[in-house]
């Protein structure tokens, strides 16, 4: 199978060409990346509270206590866990390949993270949301619609995997400071964080990219509307030190991964959550 061909198909949005309303819906959905957080911030509402009001869910977890940090983490792990379960069951991952080994290993870790965080949260555990990895029909990573071929679905699956892993790395990093009051939890969160980074590196390499993030580049095959996942990664100033000075901005930005806030992580995850 030719990975470049997959990526071209994906980036050309061939998958959606057949169905104009789905293209529109995808555009709408991704446009929300940019607007949800801002609007809610202006309205003074916690993002989750507005989106999911009554249930005890990740909605309430975008705060700054250790418990809220872990609730956000659990929500992201639920998302990854279900994504890989469905992907591995769907048949889109070529059987007997390196890729299958990789995604089985990643899926094993995400399942373990869910159990670990549930055990750690105890009574504070949040419910698993209902996910829609098609984002209202814009994607077909599990080849369920019958509208795209398996190769296209697999290219989407890999692109979403990269997006989830890179988002996970940024989200855990963004919660680290909130875990300072709970040193053991901070340590465990860091131990998960670096596993997500190992995953991200491998998935990116399977997609023909570098294992590290160059500037704020999302790489081929990920729609421009998903750019908020990578915005901010172009930062070259670290505590007053210019990381681009020695070898240029690419190397400087690669050398440091940037965090995202809880609200941004929730906004990204929300795209894949029905309720």
């Amino acid at each position: 199978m030719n990975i470049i061909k997959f990526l071209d198909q994906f980036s050309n949005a061939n998958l959606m060409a057949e169905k104009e309303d789905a293209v529109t819906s995808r555009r709408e959905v991704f446009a929300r990346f940019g607007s949800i957080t801002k609007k809610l911030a202006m309205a003074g509402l916690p993002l989750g509270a507005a989106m999911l009001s009554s249930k005890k869910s990740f909605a309430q977890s975008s705060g700054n206590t250790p418990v809220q940090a872990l609730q956000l983490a659990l929500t992201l792990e639920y998302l990854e866990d279900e994504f890989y379960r469905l992907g591995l069951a769907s048949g889109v991952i070529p059987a007997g390949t390196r890729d299958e080994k990789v995604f089985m290993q990643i899926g094993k870790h995400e399942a373990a993270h869910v159990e670990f965080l549930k055990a750690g949260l105890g009574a504070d555990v949040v419910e698993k949301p209902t996910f829609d990895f098609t984002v209202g029909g814009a994607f077909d990573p599990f080849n369920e619609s019958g509208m795209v071929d398996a190769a296209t679905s697999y290219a989407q699956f890999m692109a979403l995997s990269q997006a989830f892993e890179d988002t996970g790395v940024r989200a855990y990093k963004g919660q680290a400071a909130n875990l300072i009051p709970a040193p053991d939890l901070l340590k465990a969160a860091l131990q998960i964080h670096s596993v997500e980074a190992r995953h991200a590196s491998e998935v990116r390499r399977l997609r023909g990219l570098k294992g590290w993030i160059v500037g704020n580049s999302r790489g081929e095959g990920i729609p421009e509307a998903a750019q908020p996942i990578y915005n901010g990664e172009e930062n070259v100033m670290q505590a007053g030190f210019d990381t681009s000075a020695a070898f240029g901005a690419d190397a400087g930005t690669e050398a440091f991964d940037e965090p995202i806030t809880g609200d941004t992580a929730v906004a990204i995850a929300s795209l894949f959550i029905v309720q």
Partner: protein
Amino acid sequence: MGIISKKKLLKNDLNKERRHFLKLGGASIAVTGLVLVGCGDDDMNNPGGGDDEVFDLGSGDVGVLNYAYALEQLEADFYTKVVNSFYAGATDDEKQVLTDLYHHEVIHRDFFKAAITAAVSDPAMVLPTLEFDYGTLDFNSRDAVLATAKALEDTGVAAYNGAGNMIENPDYLVIAGKIVSVEARHAAAIRSLINPDSTDFAGDDVVDANGLDVAKAPSEIVPVAKGFITTEFTANNL
């Protein structure tokens, strides 16, 4: 700050005490030997006391930053040697990865030097430039270079994971977080160069049944790192 200068004072006092004690003990070499055995390593290396004493990484955030700086110096030095003379038969992908790692680690090293220098009141609290000796390591051997790279990157990940909750300043914690995930990306890439068709990128040897990566305390990391570092230093206050 003043942590180190206070310690220096303390140690100078101890050295004085020791000299007094040696005088009191008379000229017997045997007695002197016994006394020296009872002294700490740094005193052994620094019998005269004074300013040329063995550097201690320090305590608190400065200590952790110096600790990270020591590891980044090692990584930067190693990859500098690797890219200055690639092993025979290195593929384009391998050269690209190793060159990127060289860039990243040099940037990390220089970042820590700048950050620690800015954070301390006394430049003497910044870990000096270290010297390295790789012994019989064959830089022309793909297996040796990649195995060493893997060990260094996995060690870096474990070190940052183990030191994170020793950091008091949230800004430093976030910066350590920005670096450790890049080290983990490196570790996965090197592992996948060594054994591509496998789960080694996040293998069961480094990720446990809870899905957690390795975390190690400075007391576990420093002795290993010192296998390559010839400059004496101590980590007595971490």
